[in-house]
């Protein structure tokens, strides 16, 4: 978060005149063997957003992407002299280059969009963290082997333990650590219900053109649907909302069809 304000103000001052460079790189962990559900959702959301903007970028997989990032969270992009991490600052940064998906929206719609993005950031992100780090089956069968896969022996346990402590601390101050798994599922249910009611049978959340909200929703729901977990109720809940599934399919078809096997150099 410290980087947020810094990058926002810096980017406005310095980056505004420069066009979008060709060699923009998006750094993220290895998506086949390392990346975890919450990180994957965030990375996919940023990718979707950049693709919706029509901005070119290259994906770079790094095992230590998390530690390279200025905010300690993935993904981050390197654009000329700037390193910007996470979706919100990236949206602000892209905005300084004169690219935005929300130009057509009026202020009320923008306020609406902000609210729904908050809904996803508070409910889905925390639910993903909860399932990944608090549910004992998932923790032992998926999280620990994957997160530790890039570290040698004693370090993999230490890193896992450290990361878990950090996540648990965050969840406990947000009031999520005390919840039971069923309560978490009912939160997800109500979140998906709200999103589904908002979407109705439109193509995207705000008419025919995608916004960052669509990118964020796609990133999270697509990851939830496609990540194999020992307990698959999470994906099951999302599958109950056909219009959200339809949205994921549309975004995937429009923006990810040809670029799924993105070469990583």
């Amino acid at each position, binding site marked *: *978060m*410290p980087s947020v304000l810094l990058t926002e103000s810096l980017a406005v001052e310095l980056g505004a005149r420069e066009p979008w460079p060709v060699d923009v790189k998006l750094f993220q962990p290895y998506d086949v063997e390392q990346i975890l559900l919450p990180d994957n959702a965030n990375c996919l959301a940023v990718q979707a957003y950049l693709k919706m903007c029509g901005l070119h970028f290259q994906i770079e997989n790094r095992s230590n992407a998390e530690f390279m990032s200025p905010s300690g969270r993935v993904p981050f992009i390197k654009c000329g002299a700037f390193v910007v991490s996470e979706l919100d600052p990236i949206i602000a940064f892209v905005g300084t280059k004169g690219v935005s998906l929300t130009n057509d929206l009026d202020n009320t719609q923008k306020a*609406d969009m902000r609210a*729904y993005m908050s*809904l996803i950031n508070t409910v889905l992100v925390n639910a993903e963290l909860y399932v990944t780090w608090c549910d004992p089956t998932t923790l032992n069968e998926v999280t620990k082997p994957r997160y530790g896969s890039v570290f040698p022996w004693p370090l993999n346990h230490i890193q896992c333990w450290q990361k878990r402590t950090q996540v648990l601390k965050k969840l406990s101050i947000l009031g999520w650590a005390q919840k039971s798994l069923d309560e978490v599922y009912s939160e997800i249910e109500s979140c998906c219900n709200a999103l589904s*009611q908002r979407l109705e049978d439109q193509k995207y959340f705000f008419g025919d053109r995608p916004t960052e909200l669509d990118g964020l929703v796609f990133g999270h729901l697509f990851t939830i649907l496609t990540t194999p977990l020992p307990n698959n109720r999470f994906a099951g809940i999302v599958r109950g909302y056909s219009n959200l599934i339809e949205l994921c399919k549309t975004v995937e078809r429009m923006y990810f069809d040809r670029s799924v096997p993105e070469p990583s150099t």
Partner: protein
Amino acid sequence: MNRPMELDIWGGDWGLPSIDLHCLEVMAYAKFSAVPLQTHVTNNPFCTPNGSLPVFKHGKKKINGFSEIAAYLREKNFSADFGLTPKQCAESVAFSHLLSERLHPALQYVWWVDRKNYLELSRPWYAKSLPFPYNYYYPGRYERDAKKIMETLYEVCWDDPVVETGVHAEAEKCLTALSIRLGEEEFFFGSHPSTLDATVYAYLAPLLKAPFLNAALQNHLKACSNLVRFVVRISQRYFASTLQEYEAHKTSQQKPKEDSENYFPNKRRNQFLAALVATVAMTGYAFSTGLIEVSSKEEVKMEDELDEQIDESVFDHSSNEGE
């Protein structure tokens, strides 16, 4: 079930029925959905199921937390949201999450982390309201909790300037979004208040009314005039009695306040007493340690005089020896 529904809450001040966000949220919701609710100002979160107020009681049932209480009331057929479409309900959920993500940390910051506000406003207020042994414990605990929130959210120490700027920037964006969304309407969804109105009122009213010393965020809220009108409207319509009591209390208190300028009524007398006690104590100490020996000197003098008289009259040599 004819047993009354009761609610234990934090007390109110500055024309608010309660100064606590969560208590206010439940109270406003109850008013909007016409629940006959009896409120008790307990100011004591110790004997509650979750260690926090408000506590909702109905017969033997005790519930903590807004969403649980709202769900229980809905079961009993009380709800403020019956007139909303599913899409509006979705919007209401989304906006309440916007508030909890962006405005809640800012409120925690303003109440507990900001040094000036904490020392001059929140700690004295809570210490005065809480019953005896707890008043030494809870304010400090709330302060620690708030600092922990800042440290976890921003991953730097709580007194880092980054936290303050970050928290305020987020909160201001949120207030602006709310202000735009409300526009010139009476309530968020037309002319009847709903759950979202209760939540927004609970977040904004204490921020608007409390006499903060460091009022950056409060000033931003005051600049959003439609939000201010919104808060005033709800206060006047639904909590009119509290507001009137406070106004009456304020006008009656204003006169004595002017001459003593402080909250101490017998300031002059107390000062005098304190000075007197201090003087007595210091003199007593001086006497006991022998710094001043008034009486003994007089005795010595008298003895000297006596001696001199005796010397003059009888012993001429001894006076020479004494010198």
